């Protein structure tokens, strides 16, 4: 049971919890919260793919003797997740704004009432 295995299980469980939340919750804000949970779990999973045991962060400083290739974790997934987190908060905010405006039109925050909006 290494760190790698623990983090993998935690990330996939978090994605599963987020997906179950999106599918089963009825309140608009709770669906947005579950979406944020799933997004966080996905970010952990992405960073996990670059993780190698016993290595250091991808910052080259003077104490790094030997080749950097043998001593750092993969910097590419970290770069992708860095932008993904910032995009995630912007999408979350847009979700909340559209949800609040929809609740003003419908009079309720229950998503089952959305079926009453006709074309």
């Amino acid at each position, binding site marked *: *049971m*290494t*760190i790698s295995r*623990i*983090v993998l*299980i*935690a990330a996939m*469980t*978090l994605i599963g*919890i*987020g997906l*179950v*939340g999106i599918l089963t*919750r009825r*309140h*608009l*804000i*709770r669906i*947005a*919260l*579950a979406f*944020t*949970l799933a997004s*966080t779990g996905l*970010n*952990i999973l992405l*960073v*996990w793919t670059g*993780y190698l045991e*016993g*290595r*250091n*962060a*991808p*910052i080259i400083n003077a104490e790094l003797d030997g080749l950097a290739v043998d001593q750092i*974790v993969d910097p590419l997934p*970290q770069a992708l*997740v*860095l932008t993904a*987190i*910032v995009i995630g*908060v912007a999408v*979350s*905010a847009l979700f*909340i*704004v559209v*949800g*609040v405006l929809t*609740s*003003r039109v419908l*009079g*309720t*925050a229950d998503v089952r009432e959305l079926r009453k909006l006709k074309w």
Partner: protein
Amino acid sequence: MVMIHEHILLGIASVGSLTMIVAAIWALIVRDLLAAIILVGFVSLTASVLFLLMNAPDVAITEASIGAGLSTLIFLWGRARIHES
């Protein structure tokens, strides 16, 4: 992070992952919306610790400041403005 004894790192990873999953399940189940929002902020905070354990310091700083700060505020704003008649 390789300066710290590896059993301590394993312990931090286990405890952090366990609290993260428990907080996530609890956030879905709890009846009060305010408690759910704060629990999601706590999940982001423990995710930031997991990022640090995986030797990703930039991602940890970003997740801590955005997930546990700005995202929680945005959800609190939404909860205050949602209209349920």
